[in-house]
């Protein structure tokens, strides 16, 4: 009796593994297909049934996609796109970490009249969809003479975002208040407490906020599409779309190579920061 129970349990576990392996493959196929197409000679991309392993590995596809039309442009487009994206990511991440940690300190660690109401308003702003704000913000940046520059894409990060404020505030509140009291008795100012007590302890949450902003900037398409005019200033996402509209429907191997170039850094980043990633997403979903 006990034995047969154990056997059904084993069978059940095996069944679950079978389902999970099948589903994992299903989720991985598109990415594997991308890689497989990226290293194929062009005449093997269209084969039916599809051929997963090419007869020759065309690693040159990556170079070709990377340097496409660099002769006419006078620069290597994906290199320039990558540099632009990195600049935006760095400036934006720095701004996000600095501004939101300051604001979250006010919301999470200090007492002031109207704080809870201001926090509720801050949370409510998360519901405002960007398309409502798009036109006036564009008009404003045009007044500033910022259209065609990077500024619209990183300056706002220095002025806080509701989501990051929320995340950091939750974390700041979990740091024992006795630490602040002790520091105050030692003659520490609020600034001193922020800088030498709260910030060092908040590193995991700051990492999450930085990571999310990095991903968001890397991913952003609508922003660069609205504000950037010259191909030399394009980001990877926008550059890939331009590449696609010029080469679409024919050179799938080069297109997949270019897509892989845009995806790869994110995947690598994920494997180095897996813990922060999973914890961060969990934080956003559960403490709401």
């Amino acid at each position, binding site marked *: 009796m006990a034995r047969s129970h154990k056997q059904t349990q084993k069978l059940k576990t095996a069944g679950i593994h079978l389902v*999970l392996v099948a589903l994992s493959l299903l989720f991985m196929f*598109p990415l594997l297909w991308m890689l497989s197409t990226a290293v194929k000679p062009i005449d093997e991309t269209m084969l*039916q049934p599809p051929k997963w392993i090419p007869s020759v590995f065309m690693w040159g596809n990556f170079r070709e996609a990377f340097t496409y039309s660099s002769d006419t442009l006078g620069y290597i487009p994906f290199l320039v796109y990558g540099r632009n994206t990195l600049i935006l990511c760095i400036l934006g991440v720095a701004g996000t970490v600095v501004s939101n940690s300051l604001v979250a300190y006010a919301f999470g660690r200090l007492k002031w009249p109207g704080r809870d109401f201001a926090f509720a308003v801050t949370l409510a702003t998360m519901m405002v969809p960007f398309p409502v704000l798009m036109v006036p913000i564009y008009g404003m940046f045009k007044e500033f003479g910022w259209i065609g520059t990077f500024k619209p894409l990183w300056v706002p990060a220095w002025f806080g975002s509701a989501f990051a404020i929320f995340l950091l505030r939750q974390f700041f509140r979990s740091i024992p208040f006795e630490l602040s009291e002790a520091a105050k008795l030692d003659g520490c100012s609020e600034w001193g407490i922020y800088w030498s007590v709260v910030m060092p302890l908040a590193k995991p949450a700051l990492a999450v906020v930085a990571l999310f902003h990095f991903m968001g900037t890397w991913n952003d398409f609508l922003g660069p599409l609205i504000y950037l005019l010259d191909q030399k200033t394009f980001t990877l996402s926008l550059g890939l779309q331009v590449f696609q509209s010029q080469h*679409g429907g024919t050179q799938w191997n080069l297109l997949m190579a270019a897509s892989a170039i845009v995806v790869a850094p994110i995947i690598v980043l994920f494997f180095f920061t897996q813990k922060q990633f*999973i914890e961060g997403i969990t934080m956003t979903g559960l403490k709401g």
Partner: protein
Amino acid sequence: MTLKRRKEATAAFLFASPWLIGFAVFLAYPLCASIYYSFCDYSVLKLPVWIGTRNYENLMRDEIFWKTLSNTAYYAIFALPLGMVVAISLALLLNTKVKGLAFYRTFFFLPSLVPMVSLAVLWLWMFNGESGLVNAALGGIGIKGPNWLSDPEWSKPALVLLSVWGVGNAMVIYLAGLQDVPVQLYEAADLDGATAWQKTRNVTLPMISPVILFNLIMGIIGTLQVFTVPYVMFPGGSPARSTYFYTMYLFDNAFRYQKMGYACAMGWIMFLIILVLTMISLRLSEKHVHYGGS
């Protein structure tokens, strides 16, 4: 106010100042300006001229507006529930204490990291009518796949299907929610002789209902703003405007046709729809969402 409290309030004001400026400049002002522009004839090239409710009246008569609204509703109605069911099912499967959870989780999660433009380009190729992997797989089991990208009947289903590929993010949230469900509840259910389905239905789902609600509201806000993937995959909302979504039309009005007042009116209608749907989800959830002791 005592001196100490006043000092603390001053400090708070200084700490919060980036957001006070950000809120005023990037939220409050644009929100007010946008409502004003929505009653104006306005393009960036000229000053706004007050025209009353004409933008809204024209929208009501604009066939393309209704087309994009219905396309967006179609997409939301299919993509949202399907995504939720798949995400919750995957999370439930992963929560069965099988070995190798971290591996499986990574496999399901990775696709949700793929940047939108890469994702769109990849799925253009996946859905390719002649040599795409999707139709090759369908052909393998004896089904002749449709022309996903050029048949107006199949373009939206294609977008719904590919949206499921990105459920990894939601799945991670559900999984964390599942792991927070107290084991005692399951033990009690076991003593009562509950089946696996009964446990899922009566213990698990009620316990993670706040997470479901959160994902539902975020899902509504996100789905109504769908832009990048259809913009890259289906230029101009082709074929036959079957993939012309609300935000794409709003974008075109603002930046292609220079009808910025019109675009603002569209923005406000979208905002109202989001508010109403959120309110309805919150109201409906009052009966069904269970908040734990914490």
